[in-house]
């Protein structure tokens, strides 16, 4: 190495590596503080006061949830309790969940807790995707609560013989292999009635999370294949 140039000096590159890494790490930590505040779970008070949170409180299960195009943001957003003049959540319109729309914060939190634990204890993520992450053997569950197939005229609700979306989902979760929806079936995972209610609460809550428009056009298109 006859040329003593800084560009071929190991010390220079070692220091560069240290500084670059340190800078990136500090920036990531700083962004983590900012993001953590923005994704902390809301409360019942937020919902009653009309405060929009990216991750609403568990009592969001008492409200009607929709997924509607927002002109300002240019993609769909979760709309809770009906739409206001700006096209965002009005937090007004309630919706019965297992016969009630007045679940207390404690009750709702307990259901969500059970459901989240259940989602892990049954390895949901190793077939399905949640928020788009997981395995690709079964449908994405991010907005499963809003899937028209589980709605009043939906084939999945009809299949279970139940009258509401939540009861139909809970029934399916307890006896999935009795209700084959496809050649590829969901196995029986020993989900109890109580766990099923928790899992449905978890799914309804997940559908209210602001995912920046993922998945796009969810449930908006019918029969596009073969021009049906």
């Amino acid at each position, binding site marked *: 190495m006859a040329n003593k140039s800084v560009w071929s000096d*190991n010390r220079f590159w070692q220091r*560069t*590596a240290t500084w670059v890494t340190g800078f*990136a790490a500090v920036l990531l930590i700083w962004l983590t503080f900012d993001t953590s505040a923005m994704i902390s779970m809301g409360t019942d008070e937020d919902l009653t006061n009309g405060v929009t949170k990216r991750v609403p409180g568990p009592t969001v299960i008492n409200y009607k949830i929709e997924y509607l195009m927002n002109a300002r943001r240019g993609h769909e957003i979760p709309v809770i309790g009906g739409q206001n003049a700006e096209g965002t959540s009005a937090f007004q319109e309630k919706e019965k969940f297992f016969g009630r729309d007045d679940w207390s914060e404690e009750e709702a939190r307990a259901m969500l807790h059970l459901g989240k634990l259940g989602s892990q*204890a049954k390895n949901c993520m190793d077939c399905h995707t949640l928020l788009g992450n997981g*395995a690709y053997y079964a449908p994405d569950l991010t907005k499963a609560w809003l899937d028209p*197939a589980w709605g009043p005229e939906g084939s999945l609700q009809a299949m279970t013989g139940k009258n509401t979306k939540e009861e139909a989902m809970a029934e399916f979760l307890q006896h999935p292999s009795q209700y084959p929806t496809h050649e590829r*079936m969901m196995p029986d995972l020993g989900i109890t009635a109580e766990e099923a209610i928790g899992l449905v609460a978890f799914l309804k809550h997940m559908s209210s*999370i602001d995912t920046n428009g993922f998945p796009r056009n969810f449930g908006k*298109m019918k029969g596009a294949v073969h021009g049906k």
Partner: protein
Amino acid sequence: MASNTLNESKQLATWYFTFAAILFGAQLLFGLIAAIQFVMPGFLFEVLDFSIVRMLHINALVVWMVFAMFGSVYWLLPDETGIDTVGIKIGKLLYWIFVAAIAVVVLVFLFIQVGPADQTTIWFITEGREYIEAPRWADIGIVVVALGFVGNLFLTGMKGKQTGIVTVLMADMIAFAGLYLAGMFFTDNISVDQYWWWWVIHLWVEATWEVFVGAIAAYGLITMIGAHRKVVEMWLWIEVAMLFGSGILGMGHHYFWIGTPEYWWEIGALFSALEPLPLVAMFVHVLYDWGKTQGAEMNAEHTTEDNMKSVIKNKPAFTWFVLNAFGNFLGAGVWGFFHTLPQVNLYTHGTQFTSAHGHLSFFGAYATILVGMMYIAVQGKNNIKVMHNTKASIWAVSLITGGVMGMTVALTIAGYVQVLVSRAQMGATWAGYFDGQAGLWFSQGMDWRLIMGVVTFIGFLFLAKDLLTTGKNPVHER
């Protein structure tokens, strides 16, 4: 590599490599079962369901790579530091604890599979979070073992000669062990859950593991072709700067859709788009520099037919290292960039496209170089001066590489169908999902993936045979 008996550090390395190779086989077997289930959904239904098989497929992958990484460090430490590894007895004890813990976890995954929705399941059966399903007790065990390993590395590095390679490994491995802690808590908030979950997954495979590979590639270039340490280590530092500089904030590409704010779109897009740059740089530049200087000198010395000898001291390992340089660039770099911009990722996120990228990148970036290290260990263990390819070496590398490339292409095509039909056309519902899965090109993609999976597995059988027998083969120069 003069002594007849391996020192204890290298002996421990061979234990790690052996268990890694066994788990590699297990990974491929579970992958084959999962591939069969895509084609014939009734296969082992409610006996060994896709969720369990797929979990074992990926966990076996992660664990065999960690084992081979630990093995690589124990192998190169005495060469780099010039001393015996400190605390090797504890290292050996931790090895057996690690192996035993994995056996228990696998048996529980296979035979208990799922549990009730309470904390006992999280602690003793499964944590149910993709890639890091290991129950909490095993998490704690993994941290203890990892800290023991980092302890061995640090004590040896501080006592012996601290080369650039050892310095990089020390910094990298402490981050590697520490990051695992980010995945060890439970929360009801799935956005917070996935935020920290990526700290383990992303900062392992797109930051600390990549830097680890850089260090191993540096060691390989020095041992196999006698490249100048100064040149190699300079490139290693440049690579560290580029990898951490892009990879740490490249994490943003996992934060597009999990409830996190929009600014991650720009951060994730920019930094993850830079991630491919370093992946091929060091290897190509070192070879280029080496060719101009040392290679030219050696060429001048060997002018007669007699002296026309290759300067590569381990042909099969070198082949795998070359595959690493390009496989890393292609699998992690090109296939990663395909879907890293949010505008594209909105549709590709969570499809077989991701799976295509996963297959080629883990193979290209990690499997290749770790198999290369196994060959270096076989060479060292058997006192071989120049190790040549056997027929089995060539069959192994050809079938495995061809098989993985084939799977990647098949999954990419299946992914396109899924993106276009399930996502763009049908809006991602349950019905839309199955419309995509029913597509002819999707199902053909799944058939080809299975066929190419079988090819890969046959390649693995050749690899296993070669690693076990080539050491005694008379073709090598001793």
